[in-house]
């Protein structure tokens, strides 16, 4: 049996899904966290649950809502659990009235029952059950109460079938029966046809049109308004019979918003919070931990090589294991402590409710750039990883704002780009490295602004809108945050053990083989030959014909942290506790780097075409291959222009100063 979780955005469907199935799917406190359909099995049963993106009605407005509505209407789940936010019962029940018109059985899960008590709200669930004509179960998916009863109700199918709500007048009911589209969900589709819904326009007949115009005349407004009004009137009547609320004092949310949405303080607070996140992750924690982890791997490297030598393994295998595999993987893994802090901060931003405030705060500014305030959500998620960030653009209503957002999202330095930044800035800018990191984030913002303005000229604009809800602040579940950070970190570690490992081995082979056999000198290696083909691209950025820096940057396409791995493998570093010092020592392959070329090189790696996984999700969300290539070329050209520009300015400064 398949059971669909349906409800308003931010009503707690995914939290319920996680409880039912024991998984840890992404949750958050803003409308539109879930953007895909996810399936799972209820623990200890053979019941399948399907988690769907939140919807406010059965008329789609954004692409992620379309996913839900298509599923509900076309794929016909065996049962719908309608998750209703008890703190916002009026708007939630509006969807319920539509769901009850379908041919599918509905159970109402009245969620957030822990919060309504605090708010002095009382709901008579038995009365509600009677009036709505559907089974009502009180639950709290955050506190995990009522879930057992819900499962029991599902299993025993204690449902009320064939409810018939008296929402519309006899006159309208008569037209509804007359339409009779002979399809599944007859009643629902009849009403849609009556409402003049564009999706069902082909099923319309002229006879009805005349009757509709009579009704419109009598009510004095359009039929879609009449239907919506009647639905809400019906809900108000039910609410008055089973809902009671004590007058409440000023809520915590209002107090917090006085500060976070303050006319003068809001923007400085926002900038402060974002800077704090990056400084904490990259600056404070980073500088303390990278050294420690590096030392750990240096020890591992030493023990492994002496062990392998002692058992008489041939030299080239020792080199492959130590100079290739361990060095490459370790170069990436040493950044894990920083990533944990970054993931933790992002998770907190997502779950507390501040994310929605940011979109509300900056919508006006973003509108000028051809973006929506909602573009901020992908940008912030993007500082973790571009892939989920690009997917989250689905919540943006307008296709043109969405496309610009998708192209700009990879400009945000993601967690995999952190290693590159830290490696270079730590060595070339020492005590100023924190400042350099912050400057790169500001540069990213500048690049986004300029790109958006350019793209605005190419992508045709249509009228846009921003309709969203501002959720209350919530205290996040510590258990969820723990697992969220754990999952994301695990993905990073897994990538180090798979993709990075594989490419480290490939890099090692290409470095040690020439076209004729073993390369005696790495200048003759296959890798050097490949690098030399493309080195002209990087010459204006780093001021040096370097095949090594070229191949490292190109390998960033695999995964951005691979740049760091490749560099350490190419430089042949093994027993080092201070990678950057050795890497950039004069005489080494990367010895030519100076602060100007280092900064320019980081900029290119940051803003040029993202890694393949991000490219794949760009293709998926942009829709066509042509648009995807357009985006890649655009990003790379922008990155190249910026880095050349920075190199010229930087070199000039260095010349003048010293």
């Amino acid at each position, binding site marked *: 049996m398949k059971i669909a979780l349906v409800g308003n955005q931010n009503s707690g469907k995914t939290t319920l899904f996680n409880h039912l199935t024991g998984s840890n799917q992404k949750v958050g406190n803003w409308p539109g966290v879930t953007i895909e359909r996810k399936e799972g099995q209820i623990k200890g049963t053979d019941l399948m649950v399907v988690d769907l993106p939140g919807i*406010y*009605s059965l*008329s789609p*407005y954004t692409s992620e809502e379309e996913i839900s509505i298509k599923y509900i209407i076309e794929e016909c789940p065996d049962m719908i659990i309608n998750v209703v936010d008890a*703190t*916002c*019962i*009026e*708007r939630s029940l*509006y969807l319920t009235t539509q769901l009850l018109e379908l041919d599918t059985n509905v159970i109402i899960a009245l969620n957030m029952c822990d919060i309504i008590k605090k708010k002095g709200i009382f709901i008579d669930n038995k009365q509600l059950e009677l009036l709505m004509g559907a089974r009502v179960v009180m639950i709290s998916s955050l506190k995990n109460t009522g879930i057992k009863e819900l499962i029991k109700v599902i299993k025993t199918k204690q449902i009320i079938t064939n409810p018939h709500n008296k929402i519309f007048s006899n006159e309208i009911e008569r037209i509804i029966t007359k339409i009779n589209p002979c399809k599944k969900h007859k009643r629902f589709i009849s009403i849609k046809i009556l409402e003049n819904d*564009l999706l069902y326009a082909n099923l319309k007949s002229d006879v009805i049109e005349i009757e509709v115009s009579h009704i419109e005349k009598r009510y004095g*407004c359009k039929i*879609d*308004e009449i239907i*919506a*009004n009647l639905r*809400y*009137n019906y809900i108000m009547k039910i609410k008055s019979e089973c809902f009671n609320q004590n007058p409440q004092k000023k809520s915590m949310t209002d107090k917090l*918003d006085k500060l976070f*949405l*303050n*006319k*003068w303080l*809001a*923007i400085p607070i926002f900038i402060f919070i974002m800077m704090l996140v990056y400084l904490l992750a990259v600056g404070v924690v980073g500088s303390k931990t990278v050294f420690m982890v590096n030392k750990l791997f240096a020890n591992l490297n030493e023990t492994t090589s002496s062990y392998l030598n002692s058992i008489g393994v041939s030299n080239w295998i020792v080199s492959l294991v130590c100079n290739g595999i361990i060095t490459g993987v370790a170069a990436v893994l040493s950044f894990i402590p920083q990533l944990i802090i970054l993931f933790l901060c992002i998770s907190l931003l997502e779950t507390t409710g501040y994310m929605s405030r940011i979109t*509300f*705060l*900056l*919508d*006006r*500014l973003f*509108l000028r750039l051809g973006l929506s*305030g909602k573009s901020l959500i992908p940008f912030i998620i993007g500082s973790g990883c571009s892939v989920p960030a690009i997917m989250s653009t689905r919540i943006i209503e307008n296709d043109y704002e969405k496309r610009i957002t998708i192209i700009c999202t990879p400009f945000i330095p993601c967690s995999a780009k952190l290693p590159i930044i830290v490696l270079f800035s730590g060595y070339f800018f020492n005590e100023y490295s924190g400042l350099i990191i912050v400057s790169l984030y500001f540069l990213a913002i500048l690049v986004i602004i300029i790109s958006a303005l350019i793209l605005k000229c190419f992508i045709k604009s249509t*009228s846009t*809108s*921003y*309709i*969203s*809800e*501002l*959720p209350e602040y919530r205290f996040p579940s510590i258990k969820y945050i723990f697992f969220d950070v754990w999952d994301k970190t695990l993905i990073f570690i897994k990538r180090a053990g798979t993709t990075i490992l594989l490419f480290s081995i490939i890099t090692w082979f290409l470095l040690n083989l020439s076209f004729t056999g073993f390369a005696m000198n790495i200048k003759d290696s296959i890798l050097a030959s490949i690098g030399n083909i493309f080195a002209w691209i990087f010459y204006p950025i780093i001021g040096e014909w370097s095949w090594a820096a070229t191949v490292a940057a190109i390998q960033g396409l695999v995964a951005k942290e691979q740049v760091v791995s490749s560099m350490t493998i190419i430089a042949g570093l093994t027993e080092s506790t201070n990678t950057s010092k050795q890497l950039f020592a004069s005489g080494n392959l990367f010895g030519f780097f100076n602060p100007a070329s280092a900064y320019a090189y980081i900029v290119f790696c940051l803003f040029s075409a993202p890694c393949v996984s991000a490219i794949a999700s760009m293709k998926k969300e942009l829709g066509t291959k042509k648009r995807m290539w357009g985006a890649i070329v655009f990003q790379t050209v922008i990155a190249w222009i910026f880095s050349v520009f920075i190199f010229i300015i930087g070199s000039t400064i260095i010349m003048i100063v010293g």
Partner: protein
Amino acid sequence: MNKLKVGDKGYLVDLCKGQKALVIGLCNDNKSIKRRLLDMGITTGVEVMIKKISPMGDPVDIYLRGYELCIRKKDMKGIIVKVIE
């Protein structure tokens, strides 16, 4: 801009922070935005209140039906209201 007083009819966009009003009707040209506003509960007779305004002046946060809805001023122009407080 003249401030709307109690009993006045006008558009939601002209209301000041803290003012309450009843919705009388919708006259948005864009059908899908109108659909969305109806679905979000902006129907005839509902009480709305301007609760928060973004520091940059737009969008606006409206309190209705027990929750807070954010919309741009542009889309509020189509909502006809009668001021009650």
